[in-house]
């Protein structure tokens, strides 16, 4: 038998024919098509039991209630909590992206100790025991060398149990240097102090106002409690209430307002006093107010120095507009004036705040429906006074390094001055603890801050993320993310009704992190003596439960609790405190730079899509940023087309932005919604730390600006800086 080519071929053909009548080819086709749809790197999220938990978002001081949806033990969505008094179901895009902060790539997963130089990014993983004993040893050394007052802490705010634990620690340790991140809350607190004699937080009954005069406040750009203001804004629109926005740039708030009045930046106080003048002169002020202290001096001030024409020249606003604005404001039944530019991260000029507060007093809305309220926090933190040993007593007698309370008697914390004091050699810190804040990024004058921090030998960060401050620290003791921890949430910014909220863990901690409250207690206990005695609680959770007392059960059930009217503070209104004397000779808030070298004015703008405080934009949030704000790796500056023409800059062109403090390469965006001669740059970009989704994009506004001390409060009042924009 010949086995040749033909036999072979017939074998093959037989095989093929046979294969065709088996399921093999069809099954293989079906299987390979399925195989091509199931690559192993395409995730298949496992299904499971659905559940919901309520908590409070703490990414900003807004304090929105959130409902967290879970599948088994994974969180899959964060939504606003329906029925919560602050946000009633709505949530801002930062809160919605919270899961990327919980499971995200930038989390610090375990305590880290720096090896190599600061900023090199070389870390050694250490255990919690090692970390805490290292901190305790360092602090014990400093203390025994008589330097207890050279230890400081920077915390996000002064309200709530965690900041108070820091305060308690520093007090028993012997240091007065408890510092907080600055914001308009500081200016408002000072205003209430000097004009009403009360130590309180400001609250606005925004929902009930019917004419809102905003001096640059980003009502829908993130001012106050953002979602609460969004809802108030929608309610105003729906009910025909009027909003007037006064600022040099057409922000989203201005665009949604009923009237946008562009103003020369830095002259807001003049406008407020000019309006006051018109109101008094036309007898539109609230009847009883003329009996207040200092009213006559105030009246003299505004009538002599703030005539409409003069104010018009200063502010660049048409006289007729000023007059009608004053009249409309005063004639409204529930007028409300607010200030604090943008999201309120820069404290601002005290004169401006006082002028606006006087305006509110003139129309009689202090502590009234639809007006400004002085609220104190729910006084639930009633810990026994700690016993202080002699070192602690001595340390607490020393002056604060930032001059708050001494050079500037009424102010509580002056972080901007800390930097100056250290850089000029007038003072120093041996150790610094940073929690809930990212000062190396979010404080104006980045170079100066970096310099100051370089002169602090021991920096500990409690950040959950590898942010700029943590990257330059010596030890990172990562805190749980808000979804993993219990913490009290004191009254959200700007609320007139005092509320306590409770953020609670919806998942167990994903990494080897520890609650910052627990860490402070452990450090205190490691130091022993009087310091340890002041922290007799077993754990932070035990401390919180004890502190909240009966409120604990209510908070666990509902998530929030009101505290009625007990907390509203009345005081005697003083129209013309000493602090106002400088207003008798008005000059706009000065900023750095000479007009010859720097012909343009650079102002920042805030957008709710860019987080510029402790949290950096999660990937979802940075994705929403328009390509006229960030393109590729460059921030876009907004300039008026007229200015663009003068400078020869067309849309999309690269340019060099130069200020007395720094330089950046930017892209030009021509925008009709900005005054000619002004350049606007968004805050929130230019991160150098975090992860690839955020780092290296755009420039940090804070690198281009410095801080200017308000002469009375010492707080930073720089609303901008002079700048130059040239073709590149």
């Amino acid at each position: 038998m010949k086995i040749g080519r033909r036999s072979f071929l017939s074998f093959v053909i037989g095989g093929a024919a046979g294969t065709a009548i088996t399921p093999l080819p069809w099954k293989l086709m079906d299987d390979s098509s399925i195989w091509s749809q199931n690559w192993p790197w395409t995730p298949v999220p496992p299904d499971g039991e659905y559940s919901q938990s309520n908590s409070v978002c703490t990414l900003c001081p807004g304090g929105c209630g959130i409902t967290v949806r879970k599948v088994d033990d994974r969180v899959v969505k964060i939504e606003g909590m329906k029925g919560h008094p602050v946000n009633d179901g709505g949530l801002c895009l930062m809160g919605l992206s919270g899961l990327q902060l919980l499971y995200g790539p930038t989390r610090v997963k375990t305590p880290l100790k720096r090896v190599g130089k600061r900023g090199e990014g070389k870390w050694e993983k250490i255990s919690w025991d090692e970390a805490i004993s290292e901190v305790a040893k360092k602090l014990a050394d400093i203390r025994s060398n008589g330097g207890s007052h050279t230890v400081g802490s920077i915390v996000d705010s002064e309200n709530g149990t965690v900041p108070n634990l820091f305060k308690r620690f520093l007090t028993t340790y012997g240091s007065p240097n408890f510092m907080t991140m600055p914001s308009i809350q500081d200016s408002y607190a000072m205003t209430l102090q000097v004009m009403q004699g009360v130590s309180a937080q400001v609250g606005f009954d925004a929902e009930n106002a019917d004419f809102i005069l905003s001096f640059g406040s980003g009502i829908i750009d993130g001012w106050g409690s953002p979602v609460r203001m969004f809802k108030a804004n929608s309610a105003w629109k729906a009910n025909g209430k009027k909003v007037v926005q006064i600022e040099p740039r057409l922000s989203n708030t201005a665009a949604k307002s009923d009237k946008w009045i562009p103003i020369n930046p830095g002259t807001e106080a003049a406008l407020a006093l000019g309006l006051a003048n018109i109101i008094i002169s036309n007898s539109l002020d609230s009847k009883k107010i003329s009996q207040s202290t200092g009213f006559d001096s105030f009246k003299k001030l505004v009538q002599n120095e703030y005539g409409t024409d003069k104010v018009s020249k200063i502010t660049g606003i048409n006289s007729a507009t000023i007059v009608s604005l004053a009249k409309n404001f005063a004639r409204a039944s529930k007028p409300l004036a607010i200030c604090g530019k943008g999201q309120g991260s820069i404290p601002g000029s005290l004169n401006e705040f006082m002028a606006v507060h006087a305006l509110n007093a003139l129309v009689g809305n202090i502590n009234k429906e639809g007006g400004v309220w002085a609220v104190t926090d729910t006084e639930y933190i009633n810990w026994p006074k700690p016993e202080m040993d002699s070192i602690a007593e001595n340390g607490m007698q020393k002056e604060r390094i930032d001059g708050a309370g001494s050079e500037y008697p009424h102010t509580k914390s002056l972080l901007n001055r800390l930097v100056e004091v250290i850089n000029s050699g007038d003072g120093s810190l041996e150790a610094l603890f940073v929690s809930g804040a990212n000062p190396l990024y979010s404080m104006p004058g980045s170079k100066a801050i970096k310099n100051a921090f370089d002169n602090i030998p021991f920096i500990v960060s409690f950040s959950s993320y590898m942010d700029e401050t943590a990257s330059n620290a010596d030890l990172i003791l990562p805190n749980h993310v808000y979804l993993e921890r219990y913490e009290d949430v004191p009254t959200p910014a700007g609320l007139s009704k005092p509320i306590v909220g409770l953020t609670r863990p919806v998942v167990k901690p994903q990494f080897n992190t520890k609650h910052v409250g627990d860490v402070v207690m452990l450090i205190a206990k490691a130091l022993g003596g009087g310091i340890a005695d002041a922290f007799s609680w077993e754990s932070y959770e035990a401390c919180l439960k004890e502190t909240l007392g009966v409120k604990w059960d209510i908070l666990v059930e509902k998530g929030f609790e009101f505290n009625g009217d007990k907390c509203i503070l009345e005081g005697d209104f003083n129209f013309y405190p000493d602090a106002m004397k400088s207003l008798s000779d008005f000059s706009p808030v000065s900023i750095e730079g000479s007009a010859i070298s720097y012909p343009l004015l650079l102002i920042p703008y805030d957008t709710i899509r860019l987080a510029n405080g402790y949290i950096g934009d999660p990937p979802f949030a940075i994705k929403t940023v328009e390509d006229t704000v960030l393109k590729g790796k460059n921030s876009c500056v907004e300039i008026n087309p007229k200015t663009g023409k003068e400078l020869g800059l067309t849309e999309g062109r690269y340019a060099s932005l130069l200020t007395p403090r720094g330089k950046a390469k930017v892209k030009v965006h021509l925008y009709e919604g900005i005054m000619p001669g002004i350049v606007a740059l968004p805050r929130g970009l230019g991160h150098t730390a975090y992860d690839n989704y955020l780092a290296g994009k755009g420039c940090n506004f804070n690198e281009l600006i410095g801080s200017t001390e308000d002469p009375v409060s010492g707080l930073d009042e720089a609303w901008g800086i002079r700048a130059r924009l040239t073709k590149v």
Partner: protein
Amino acid sequence: MKEEGKHKKAKKYGMVINLDECTGCGACMVACMAENNVPFKEDESNKLDSIAWMRVYKLTNGKPYPEAEICYLPRPCMHCEGEHGHAPCVSVCPATATDYNHETGIVSQIYTRCFGCRYCMVACPYHARYFNWWDPVWPEESTKYLSPNVSPRMRGVVEKCSFCFHRYQLAMDKAYLEGRTVLEEDEYQTSCTQACPAGAITFGDLNNPEHKVHQLAKPDNKHGGRPGNPNVFRLLERLGTNPKVYYMSSREWVRQAGDNYINNEDFAKNYRQ
């Protein structure tokens, strides 16, 4: 069944977005991304390949300072009905990966059928469709927050807003368990509607006179779904796509911005036709 004894029309799920209230905050964009496992890249500033099922556009009135005005416009998929369900994208899909459902009015997108020809992207006049040029990369633990109700896509498929149809499926599950087939207005709401802090988005059944969207838009089914409310308009009305997303604005320039015009066209005359 007795509860459905009355003759019922098919549903037409649609939206009314109040542009007076929209603040341009972008919460709808992020809520959609979080709900629907939308991927993200390191550089999202090239908006041509940045996937955002819901996208907020910025409109301007074109006037110089200080009369400049801006308005934000959120744009999900319009779920166009066209004529008898012939949405532009549905008409061109060679794989029937997308289809118009007459019972709910929603245009579906099935990723496993799509082979990525992008013909539908060409056809869609609203740029509502997005292509996965690359495989989505989920950094580290991020796969934990992926929702099991929406299928994560691989590279090479087109994706678009689905009016959170998975929420409809889950709501129907609950309804079946309770022995009913009718959904209440608040049982099926899209993620963007729920998240909007300003309350600018309303979602519901345009054919149901009890639903808010019907009351706001007053759609005229006999004339291609045109809105009866004079302050309400749809984008590119005259293309005849019969979209289901209606916009409301008290400002005329905003309503005017919703369509394209040839020079010398009388806007008002043509708009009312």
